[in-house]
């Protein structure tokens, strides 16, 4: 792949130190995260019930290209709604792609879309760091937002998750957060762990079978202060936040983990296990959710579940991120 800049860097800040792309939450300063969360809070009011026009003109005349090289319903839809509420023009492109020969065709695609006056690219790709390569390639006036890359990062999901935690639990530094399931393949877990660590949360537990928390990953997580558990009962005790993750079969070999009911028996969030967390613990899931695999259906619909709040806050987070990068 031809790069105008060094593709190993993940520079999401411009020369003035302002956020011009959103690529990763790893290493993002606390002030920047807070700034995005506070900006998002303003955008929640755009959907106030008595506001007849749920739209503001900030990105009028800008073009947002949703480039989804990998399937998504929720993320793509919420990015589209967010762009619409900011009055941007949205162009959705679903680009099925094979794992080889991506490099050249990807950059060609981008060059063509830049020639069509794209202002913002929202990129989801099954290859980790593909959005970084795009960001390194595009001209300065084009902005790239990572909407999930391989098993690397999903920064807007991480931000909406901590927004949700802050909304319900206020002080992030005092929280105990238990993340259960497929940590290995979860870009959501990684983005959450980076953001939570930066925000001063010092009790993060990663819970899953050894096949999904292999020793090298466990070592990396431990170095960030994350505690590793292989039994839900051990890790969930006293948690304020319980986050369950989908088993990403598409990213693993057969037999890597017990399937379906067998997984639920060992690692699924059921009433008995949830009862071991704090009584007012919130239950989160980034979706898509497999009921009866990682989470019991009654919990998903229960009064501790904030899963649908996550979706709603996701719109405000994406509005905030788009208007921040486009204005810088």
């Amino acid at each position: 792949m031809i790069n105008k800049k060094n593709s190993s860097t993940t520079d999401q800040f411009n020369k003035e130190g302002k956020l011009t792309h959103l690529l990763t939450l790893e290493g993002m300063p606390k002030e920047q995260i807070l700034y995005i969360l506070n900006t998002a809070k303003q955008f929640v009011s755009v959907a106030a019930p008595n506001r007849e026009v749920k739209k503001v003109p900030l990105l009028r005349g800008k073009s947002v290209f949703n480039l989804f090289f990998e399937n998504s319903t929720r993320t793509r839809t919420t990015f589209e709604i967010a762009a619409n509420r900011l009055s941007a023009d949205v162009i959705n492109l679903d680009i099925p792609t094979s794992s080889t020969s991506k490099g050249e065709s990807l950059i060609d695609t981008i060059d063509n879309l830049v020639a069509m006056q794209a202002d913002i690219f929202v990129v989801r790709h099954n290859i980790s760091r593909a959005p970084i390569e795009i960001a390194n390639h595009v001209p300065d006036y084009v902005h790239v937002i990572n909407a999930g890359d391989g098993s690397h990062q999903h920064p807007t999901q991480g931000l909406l998750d901590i927004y949700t935690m802050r909304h319900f639990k206020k002080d992030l530094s005092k929280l105990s957060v238990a993340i259960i399931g497929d940590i290995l393949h979860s870009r959501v877990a990684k983005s959450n762990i980076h953001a939570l660590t930066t925000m001063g949360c010092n009790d993060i537990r990663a819970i899953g079978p050894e096949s999904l928390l292999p020793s090298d990953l466990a070592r990396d997580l431990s170095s960030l202060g994350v505690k590793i558990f292989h039994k839900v009962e051990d890790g969930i005790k006293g948690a304020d936040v319980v986050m369950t993750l989908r088993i990403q079969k598409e990213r693993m070999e057969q037999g890597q983990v017990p399937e379906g009911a067998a997984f639920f028996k060992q690692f699924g969030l059921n009433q008995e296990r949830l009862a071991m967390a704090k009584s007012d613990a919130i239950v989160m899931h980034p979706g898509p959710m497999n009921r009866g695999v990682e989470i019991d259906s009654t919990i998903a619909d229960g009064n501790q579940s904030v899963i649908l709040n996550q979706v709603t806050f996701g719109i405000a987070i994406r509005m905030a991120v788009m208007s921040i990068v486009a204005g810088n």
Partner: protein
Amino acid sequence: MNAEALYRDLLKHLKGGLFQNASHQTTPVYLAGLAIGGAWLAERLALDLGLTQYGVINVSFHRDDYAEKGIRAIETASTMPTKLPFDVNHAHIVLLDDVLLTGRTVRAALNELFDFGRPAKVSLMVLADRGERELPVSANFASQTVILPESQILVLERNQDNQFSFVIEERNK
């Protein structure tokens, strides 16, 4: 400039005018203050006029300098978002602000207000009118007309006892 005296003039104007026979109003009249100074005015006027509610309008989403200043242009919204606890449709909305200068804020406020409905009438009342308009906007009532150099900004402040004062500051750059 005595902000307290200017406030009393505004209160007297509303008492003797729009709110003289409030019970006989055929069109409901609501106060809506522009964040932040105008919202303080609306809050205190509602108290002094015995009104049960008042609105706040935050113009951030409709400011015309986003392209120049980016998202920092809309920063005040987090502390005082728009709140209109009444039906804007068919009502007479009295916009309140501390200072009227270019008229750009009022233009943005009208856009924000109309996102909530179609009022029957909109008026504008301010404490200080500095002239120097950049848009065709005028106030229905201004307690005082003030001439100041362009390099200075007039800022309303409020102390713990809810008393107002005006401070003159030098504009950055």
